[in-house]
């Protein structure tokens, strides 16, 4: 078995009014992309900030390469926070150079600029970048020490689809260099595409853990039938089916497609807008964390 690069032991973080993390444990093997998923307020950012050494836990421990987080971890970790402000009036190149100066070892500033496709923006004021460009610059800063471990906290939130795909390609190229990545995200598509292993958190606890494909196989031996909500009459809810409400549709999971279709036809449910697809990570996420809106 591979020795984990990061071990998380029974983390607890309590605030006066709430418990943000309530006993979370997992190991991260080296060289993989490890996803932390969960609805708003699940404890993802608190957990990742404790793992980054930014926030002290109430109890529990995080160990990097078998030792408590210390100078070596700070030298070898790269971090992209959910929100980061930099110094005013500095260009992209100068902002990257500032952070390069804080590490003993790392990549050449120009190399990082090239790696994150920032050549044409290098001399621009860092405040005058678009959302996607800003994230690429912050990723460059996170990579400036050539980290063994990269933390990405909701890196594509607020980006347009093109910028998001562009960012994913960058993360794929970092993965190809055998770096360990810890990623938190709201986008299941992102987690499915990038993560080799995931943990789903809800109310500060782990509700599922493992490789996405394996988790899907464990929870969904079935296929999913999607119907517009208006096509699914209230009477049909009495049918012997596993029905889950999504925003504008209902989802029916089944391992016997023919019988389910016959049941729906017999009940005169209109099927002209029916869509059949295999379960994905979003289905798993909703099944485990529910569909109710979080405060």
């Amino acid at each position: 078995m591979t020795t984990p690069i990061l071990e998380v032991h029974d983390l607890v973080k309590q605030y006066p009014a709430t418990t943000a993390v309530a006993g979370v444990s997992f190991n991260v093997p080296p060289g993989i992309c490890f996803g932390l998923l969960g609805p708003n307020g699940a404890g993802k950012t608190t957990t990742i900030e404790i793992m980054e050494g930014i926030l002290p836990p109430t109890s529990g421990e995080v160990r990097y390469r078998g030792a408590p987080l210390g100078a070596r971890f700070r030298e070898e970790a790269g971090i992209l926070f959910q929100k980061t402000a930099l110094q005013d009036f500095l260009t992209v190149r100068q902002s990257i150079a500032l952070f390069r100066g804080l590490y003993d070892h790392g990549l050449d500033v120009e190399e990082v600029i090239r790696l994150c496709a920032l050549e044409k923006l290098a001399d621009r004021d860092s405040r005058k970048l678009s959302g996607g460009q800003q994230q690429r610059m912050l990723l460059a800063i996170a990579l400036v020490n050539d980290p063994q471990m990269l933390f990405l906290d909701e890196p594509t939130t607020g980006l347009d689809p093109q910028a998001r795909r562009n960012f994913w390609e960058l993360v794929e190229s970092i993965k190809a260099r055998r770096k360990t990545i810890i990623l938190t995200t709201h986008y299941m598509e992102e987690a499915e595409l990038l993560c080799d292993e995931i943990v789903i958190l809800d109310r500060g606890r782990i509700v599922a853990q493992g490789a996405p494909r394996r988790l899907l196989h464990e929870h969904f031996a079935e296929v999913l039938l999607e119907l517009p909500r208006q096509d699914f009459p209230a009477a049909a809810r009495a049918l012997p089916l596993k029905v889950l409400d999504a925003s504008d549709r209902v989802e029916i999971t089944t391992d016997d497609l023919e019988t389910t279709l016959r049941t729906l036809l017999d009940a005169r449910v209109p099927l002209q807008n029916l869509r059949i697809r295999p379960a994905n990570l979003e289905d798993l996420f909703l099944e485990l964390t529910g569909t109710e809106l979080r405060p």
Partner: protein
Amino acid sequence: MMRRLLSVLHARNLEFLRDRSTLLFTLLLPIALVIGMGFVFGGPERPLFKVGVISTQIDPASHPFLRQRYVQFVPLPDAGAALHKLTHQQIDLLVELRSPPRYWVNTDSPKGYMTEKLLLAAAPDAQRQPVSGAGLRYVDWLFPGILGMNMMFSCLFGVGYVVLRYRKSGFLKRLHATPLTAFEFLSAQVLSRLLLIVFVTAVLYAGISLIIGFHNAGSLLLLVLLAVLGALSMIALGLTVAARFSSEELVGGMLNLLTWPMMLLSGIWFSLEGSPRWVQWLAHLFPLTHVLDAARAVMLDGAGLAQIAPNLLFLGFTALAFLAFGAWSFRWRID
């Protein structure tokens, strides 16, 4: 360690120098103040005579001269220092009320002539000792005060608000995720502001000296040493306030709480000579008082290192104490 410190120092200097409006304001405000003050106070002196009495206290019952109206009597136990004030026309007459009374008068001072007449009316047998020496203009006396005030604002608000802005924006949190230590970060901020203040003060000194025709009686190097220690002490004082708080209102209020007593009691605008003892005692708790006392001693009286050593020691000690407290209580992020 030096590499990290220099990286932060370089970035902070770039940030400040590119913020042109702040830079311009930092330079123009004190120049405008000095020119304005020169116009306001550079004219005729206030119509009050000031007479030094070689004594530890003033007892009006002891001599009829001490009961004269419109004359302020100042006890000056040190005869040497009192004569020095007379030659600089900081007092109009110096008397020793023994029997018969003895007095010193500055023959270059019109007010000395007037006060001599008042004395001779009350003590015709008083023995005359003439001295001479050009008087100080108020603007010459004010000049170190303006430089010191500019330093104080730049030290306290410059560093305090910058650290607060970094904390609120999350920049400090990002730095905390690197190997940079609080001591390295704070040292870089102190050095950056120190370089700026010494540079701005030197530019102001040269510029204003030309405008008002000021001549420094002491060592320029000693003034640089004083500026460095004074700025260090006040920057470090600003850091103690900005070290952990995240509210602009609170930090602004606390900085005002520090600056206003210093504005009023450190001797920027007027001498504290003759004010109650407790006011003088309180004033000497402020770094700015020591900066101004020492600067005036060097610039106006030509004092050397030995004379201002107590002020320099106070500034050095407080700089270390404030910096240690600031580093100890420093917070990278908003709790």
